[in-house]
């Protein structure tokens, strides 16, 4: 098989790759940036899930936005794509579990994904939508873990 035909075969997957990378990256940056300037609010949003002990939930609330922004940046520039996608994907899985758990226990909370969070009226909850969105984003992460090679990535420029 010649070099040329190999490139042709990889073109579409590379394009899908860059799309999934940007979706995952932008969602993470957006989510992180919305929370990073109000750590107290973020901590309270995590506590509203009533899963982690009080202090630990606080630490997660403080750290999570920072991790989201940094991993999102790595994905957008395409550096260490596979490792970043693993982290991003695990975050999404954790969010899906957390939201499902809140739903199953009958809590009425906002997921706090993009700021906000905490208890809201039962009629305002959007669990199915939040879970579907996170599944979609997790699928992007899964693609990148399986096939981290994408178009326009720093990985490609730096490491070949």
């Amino acid at each position, binding site marked *: 098989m010649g070099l040329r035909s190999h490139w042709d075969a990889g073109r579409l997957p590379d394009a899908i790759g860059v799309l999934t990378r940007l979706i995952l990256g932008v969602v993470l940056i957006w989510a992180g940036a919305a929370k*990073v300037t*109000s*750590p*107290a*609010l*973020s*901590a*309270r949003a995590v*506590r*509203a899930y*009533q899963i982690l002990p*009080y202090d630990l939930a*606080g*630490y997660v*609330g*403080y*750290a999570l*936005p*920072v*991790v989201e922004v*940094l*991993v999102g940046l*790595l994905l957008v520039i395409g*550096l*260490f794509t596979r*490792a970043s996608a693993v982290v991003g994907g695990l975050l999404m899985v954790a969010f899906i579990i957390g939201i499902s758990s809140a739903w199953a226990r009958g809590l009425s*909370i906002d997921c706090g994904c993009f700021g*906000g969070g*905490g*208890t*809201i009226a039962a009629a305002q909850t959007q669990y199915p939508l939040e879970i579907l969105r996170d599944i979609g984003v997790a699928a992007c992460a899964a693609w990148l873990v399986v096939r981290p090679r994408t178009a326009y990535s720093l990985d490609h420029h*730096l*490491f*070949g």
Partner: protein
Amino acid sequence: MRPDAKKKIAAAAPKKGPNPVIIGAVIAAVVIVAVVVAIVIGSSGKSGGTGAAAQPSGAVAADAGGIVANAVPAKSNAPTLDLYEDFQCPVCGQFEKAMGPSITTMVAAGEVKLIVHTLSFLDDNLKNDFSKKTANAVACAADAGKFLEYHAAVFAAQPAQEGAGYTDAQITEFANTAGITGPALTTWQRCTSSGQHAQYVLDTQTAAEKAGVNSTPTLKLDGKDITKTLTTPESLITQVKLATK
């Protein structure tokens, strides 16, 4: 040399690009440092929880938060109501309009022991400090023996638009409305302007979160959350009667 051969030679040579291990280590270090800094900054704004905060008159145990609103102790068989409110919460304002008079009547008759937890989490949502300010002011009013009166005055003047808050002039006016006068008013003013109970206010918020109270208003009857069962003042009065031993 054929142009084709040049490419092949270049491709066969060992890569001279940057070392992924070093770059990876640097990025990992940046992430770890950023996370640690975020946790330190986030935790620094929290209350110490040392119990060293100046407790207002009528405050329950330091780690529980809340102020007993009964001017005269409730009857020994009276149940306990724990009311969690934020002075900036519009639903709390509606709750006070609907339930406040009945609760006040029961408190005055000693039929119920009322513990009010003045929360301040809305300051973070609304990016202001009116919840903490008014919570401190009502704690100062408790020192003057006018907790419920001041509490009622604040809710009566709650702005129609959430986040508009209360002016300093209003906060002083509430003291007049509550009937704080003379030397007590001087003490109240000193207490308010110095933020004497500011740490207590933070501790109250922390205690409520630890108790799993994530929204306002929340009303607990003998520790059980009955907020969602309340439709009319009568529904509250009935439950209080049932809980009376």
